[in-house]
């Protein structure tokens, strides 16, 4: 066997090891209901804000504490707490992914655990355009 082949094999073996360890570090997408069952484990929930309940964010008192309710498509809601600023336009987004873990009755969102679309991309959304078209009628 050539030395080069040995090196290639070693590198590929290392890559597989890396991949396996990466897969091990993954979390899963959950619904609010299933996240509650996996309390304490980091999960990702795709949901949107429940705008019927108030957002608790008072930057004068504490700019790093934001609490609100999120609702998933199955209709479950849970209170979520994020230790940072309230992301802008969170109320309007149809789909937000939250990464964090359930602690008691509260979904604790991880640092940088809120992923909203870059606003430049809302526009491709046909619903947004439709809304704009019929808005001022």
């Amino acid at each position, binding site marked *: 066997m050539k*030395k*080069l082949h040995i*090196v290639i094999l070693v*590198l*590929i073996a*290392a*890559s597989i090891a*890396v*991949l396996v360890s*990466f897969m091990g*570090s*993954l*979390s*899963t*997408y959950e619904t609010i209901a299933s996240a509650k069952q996996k309390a304490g484990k*980091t*999960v*990702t929930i*795709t949901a949107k804000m429940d705008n019927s309940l108030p957002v608790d*964010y*008072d*930057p*004068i*008192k*504490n*700019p*790093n*504490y934001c609490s609100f309710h999120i609702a998933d498509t199955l209709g479950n809601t849970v209170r979520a707490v994020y*230790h*940072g*600023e*309230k992301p*802008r*336009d969170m109320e*309007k987004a149809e*789909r937000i*992914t939250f*990464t964090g873990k359930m602690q008691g009755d509260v979904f604790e969102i*991880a*640092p940088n*655990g809120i*992923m909203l*679309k*870059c*606003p*430049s*991309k*809302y*526009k*491709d*959304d046909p619903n*947004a*355009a*439709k809304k*704009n*078209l*019929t*808005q*001022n*009628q």
Partner: protein
Amino acid sequence: MDYIGEHLLPGKLGHFFSILSFAASFVATIAYFKATTGKTPEEENSWKRLARAAFAIDIVSVFSVFAVILYIVSNHLFEYNYAWEHSGRSMSMKYLLSCIWEAQEGSFLLWTMWHCVLGTILIFTSKKWEAPVMTVISGAQLCLATMIMGLYFFGGKVGINAFLLVREKFAEGPMFSRPDYLTLPQMQDGQGLNALLQNYWMTIHPPVLFLGFASTIVPFAFAIAGLWKKQFGDWTRKALPWTLFSCCILGTGIMMGAAWAYESLSFAGYWAWDPVENASLVPWLILVAGLHTQVVYNATGHSLRATYLFLLLGFLFILYATFLTRSGILGDTSVHAFVDSGMNLQLILFVVVFLVPAAWLFISRYRKIPHIAKEEATDSREFWMFIGALVLFLSSMFIIITTSLPVLNDIFGKKWSAGEDREFAYNRIEVFIAILLGIFTAITQYLKYKNTKKADLLKKIALPTAIALVLSILTSIFGEIHYDKYGAGFLAAIHLAVFAAIYAFVANADYIRTGLHGKLKAAGGSVAHLGFGLLLLGILISSSRKTVLSYNTTGINLNFDPGAKENPMENITLLKSVKTDMGKYWATYIDDDSVDTRTKMMFFHVKFHKKDDGETFDLYPNWIRSTKGQESISANPDKHHYWNRDIFTYISASNTMDQREDTAQFRNYPVAIGDTIYYSRGFMVLDKVALNPNDSKHHFSSTDTALMAEVRVYAKDSTRYTATPLFYLKDNIPHFVADTVFAQDLAIRFNRVFKDKIELGVKESSAMIPFVALKVYEFPHINLVWFGFLVMMTGFVMSIYRRYKLAA
């Protein structure tokens, strides 16, 4: 129904040209194919003439489509969806261009336009390779033409029609039952370009990136041509400048995106391992790997098979990236991906159409690709260059597999998502890649092809190794790299990587001196590697020493937040004109100012005062209220540049954000001196009333009529404040200057004067307090990132020139 005021001719013309470009590229593909497989030179030449004519028609059509779109957009023909959805009346020329390539159709168009330019150059320069290479490029043109064709076949949509009318796109809209719908207010102006994209980067980043995308097809096409014509090794010298060009431009495009993210978006960094970023980085890494094996083959005859693999995969991963970013599949994992536009099947086919023939040619002819049976010596340059290329390739595979999680989920029906800390998931692997690449980059140049004299090598490499060791040990000791967030192991890896980066820089600098005797003509590679070392060093230092300056440690009104301990408190709140302690700095929010009513930009003036040396500077981070219809706000950062670091800040919240109504009312109290007024959190006493005050705040003289009440506020927590509301007459009109006690949410107004009493108005409201919450970061040595990158690109340009001269 006949609609009034529509301009239908441009759309018909544009649509005609987009179909013509489809037909022309179809003819060009067939004709170039026939020219490649032609039996006699006459047959070849006649097909080639037809193919060139067809390609010329394709070029004319593609540029005509673009011209028509530009006409529609710049003449504000809002009956067209393109103009209505993407442009607006108030946009200048450069933003009209930006709004064209903001759309999916427009960015595809940009891509085909670059193919036209590159194809023209290849027709004139590639001689015997013209027919097979142009077959591939015409084929790509054919595929791209379908993307903007917008025809319906058997109920399925092929491509997006750029000339769709608004009333066709939203056919169910009730307003379209009126023939004069164009007179309706919502048709008078377009949606405009998102304010966030009204930025010079948006004008230049997409064209450069798409030139990078488009250029990857050239080395791919040469590789296909080599396999197809079974002239396996003949093209590599000719194609080397193209591979270099592709790496150079694609790299620049990616880095422009990074610079944009850093300069004007609130991502607080230049790279976030976002899937869309990764999708463009991966083809670049593969092409750089291919570039190195191609150089090895040209010099030694080794590594031709690897060169084929890498150059083929480079372009195939561009196609895959196109699928990833445009199909909507990354919707939940990337902030930048487009949303689904119903073209997924077409995007998958775009990949398959190129993947299948390329894989078939590569696999079926693999054994025929010449290779040297004799093994490379372990002290030869080609051996280590190959390993370096392999490391690049494997790291790109790691990135693309992890980026493709949503695709894997779809295929295997899983629900995997990236863990809690996406950036670290990549960084902990890539730091080791950086170590390996840095060291390879440093040493490999000193090795000679075939084999190297040991004594010679040691003599030459001893000095740069020693210098690099000393420099990196000094950096490790005095460089303040204490990034222990992920433990000692990761910190050690960062220090190792710092050594590797410095080693790459020093060794390549010294190699230009000793190995090349200062001959810069041949130094392209060394310059690029030297730049790479600097870039790596910049990345390592700016990321590991990036610090949050706005830690809310001192805290005004810091609420009890049980989660706060383990969470970073990156925002700090500044009340207007209250000097606030921010670690090494004092920060004061001075005021805000709306300058541009069109984009509704609002600047916040924040003054920073360094505690230790008293240095002050002002930053003006701003907010852009988005264009109509989308009442969103985007934060734009501002930076204070030093030669060795940036102070970077952006606004995360402000009282101006909600513009909520202040519903609280003033309650009026007639009081005499010494009287007490109670409020919810304490009480206040009127101390005295001064006539025509003349102090640091007010300057009245005896000719004025001004009264100032001095009110002492006693809060429940036994803190005391003084408020001095003012009442004065000017031209016989009373004026009021209310005073505020922000800490108590109080506003106090001097309303009027009775005989022996005065009336004070007291308001309690939290909505009145002007404040900003902001994040402040320090990025040390961020300039090394940009400078290193520029040096690297300079090296690329030098190499392109030299390799072009050598190949000619």
